[in-house]
């Protein structure tokens, strides 16, 4: 088991990560369009447009603009969505259609390196996209539409990387499980939509019922969104930040061996 985690730091995992970075660098001008335009459109449509109809928006008893509430949620959602999709769709295509994995597995790289390479790449891309969203938010700040605590933002990017790592391990789990690309709808409707929206990203989720409390307590995306929100709106580090770190570490520790075992069965027919 120790060897599996150690593989994250071995040169073969970096070689796999480097391969993905090389391909991305070549296509960066088209690949960078979604993370630039998506937040601009969403911030304008929801933050400025819809937010204009919500004059008395409150978060934890404080009066904030809906745009200010939305901005940290979008950062969390971007890291989640990008890492999950990269580890699901893109990794599946490389594994199944492009045979990239097979080409890597006939070298000094082993399956654990390919798995870590995919997870690290998905997390890197999630962080890059979140960073681009941060730049867009900075643009909104300069325009005077948004007031955020930019010192707190320095802590946000490492947290987003850890979060993206956790979500990538979850995405890779479905890559190992889905029978074919046609079944990708299942994780989309079972995981992405419920988790993406019911996690204090686009609206506050509150309630005293046991189920809502349980969902919020165990939901890493909720803690991520709230942790970032506290940092960016108040400059405070709070329990959500710590809970997010703990839950993402737990996800990585638990899911990596499961991913590796399931993928060993799927790719190599072993186990």
């Amino acid at each position: 088991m120790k060897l599996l985690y150690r593989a994250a730091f071995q040169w073969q995992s970096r070689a796999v990560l480097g391969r993905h970075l090389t391909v991305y660098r070549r296509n960066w001008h088209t690949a960078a369009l979604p993370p630039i335009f998506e937040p601009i459109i969403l911030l304008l449509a929801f933050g400025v447009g819809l937010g204009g109809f919500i004059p008395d928006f409150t978060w934890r008893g404080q009066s904030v603009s809906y745009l200010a509430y939305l901005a940290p949620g979008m950062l969390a959602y971007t890291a989640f969505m990008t890492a999950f999709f990269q580890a699901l769709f893109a990794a599946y295509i490389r594994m199944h259609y492009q045979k990239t994995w097979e080409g890597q597995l006939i070298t000094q790289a082993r399956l654990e390196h390919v798995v870590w390479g995919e997870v690290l790449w998905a997390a890197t891309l999630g962080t890059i996209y979140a960073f681009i969203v941060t730049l867009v938010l900075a643009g909104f700040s300069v325009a005077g539409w948004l007031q955020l605590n930019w010192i707190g933002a320095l802590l946000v990017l490492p947290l987003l990387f850890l979060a993206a790592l956790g979500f990538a391990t979850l995405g890779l789990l479905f890559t190992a499980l889905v029978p074919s690309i046609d079944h990708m709808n299942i994780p989309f409707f079972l995981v992405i939509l419920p988790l993406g929206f019911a996690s204090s990203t686009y609206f506050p989720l509150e309630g005293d019922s046991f189920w809502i409390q349980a969902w919020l307590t165990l939901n890493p995306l909720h803690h991520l969104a709230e942790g970032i929100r506290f940092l960016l709106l108040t400059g405070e580090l709070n329990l959500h930040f710590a809970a997010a770190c703990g839950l993402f570490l737990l996800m990585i520790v638990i899911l990596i061996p499961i991913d590796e075992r399931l993928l060993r069965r799927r790719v190599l027919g072993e186990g």
Partner: protein
Amino acid sequence: MSIPTIDPVSRAFPVLQADDLVKNFAGRCVVDGVSLHCQAGQVLGLLGANGAGKTTTLRLCYGFLQPDGGTIQIAGIDRSVDPEAAARQVGVCTQDDTFDTDFTVRGNLEQMSRYFRPSPSNLKERIAALMKRFGLDRYEKAKPETLSGGYRRRLMLARALVHEPRLLFLDEPTTGLDPQARMEVWELVNTLRNDGLAIVLTTHYMDEAERLSDDLLVLQEGRMVAAGRPRTVLGDLVGEHMLVLEAGDPAIPAVCDWARQAGLPEPSRVLSTLHLALDGPGLAQFSARFGELRFEVRPPTLDDLFLKLAEKP
């Protein structure tokens, strides 16, 4: 570019020494006690019908799969002790095209080299030399999927050699190629053998196995059924002579009865002919008994072996 010259002493040592390999999938034994040895400058052909365990044996040797039993040494390195160092000595040309479609021809060679450490010396020059040797230099900036089947195979071979391995695995290297492209691949394999590379190949083409292999290893249902020089293997498994008879000849039932009584296997039917394998004394007895029949005698070929292996044991 050339593969480093291998001295005569090193040539005598097996670059690949795999013994008693066992592999089970879902409780079914697909490789059962297979051993294979290959020296520098030697081509070892793995033969067998579909499902005989050829590709699995190859995958065990190059580390794609882990054996459930047995030992594998590559250039003296025990794969179970130091898999990374063992993998550094190995180049693999898989049955399917596994080049990276996100890279150009040159990019594929560059990227492949990044999966090996230590990196080969003079990498730029080596890549240029490989592209020239395999006729890929004019397609340097092309995407691999735009190449013809023959050039795709050349790219797969060049990729397998970019890190200067000592042992090359070729899994059905010419499947799906036209005759000219096949011959070109044969030529390349032959030059690599002359350069001193140890080569293990699987193939369905009997002419390919016969022309390229110094030694053969024949597998049937995961077990070795014969090993050695092609002629020896044929003699052991098929027989010294192959009799070809007209299947429509009225004397055929009598021939079948005679074969049965002599304890020979049933003659196999190939289109309008019957094939019967015989040793020297058997041929003499047959001639004495059926001297009036029209028949042809020829040496056995690997096609005969393949047909024999395809029969249920």
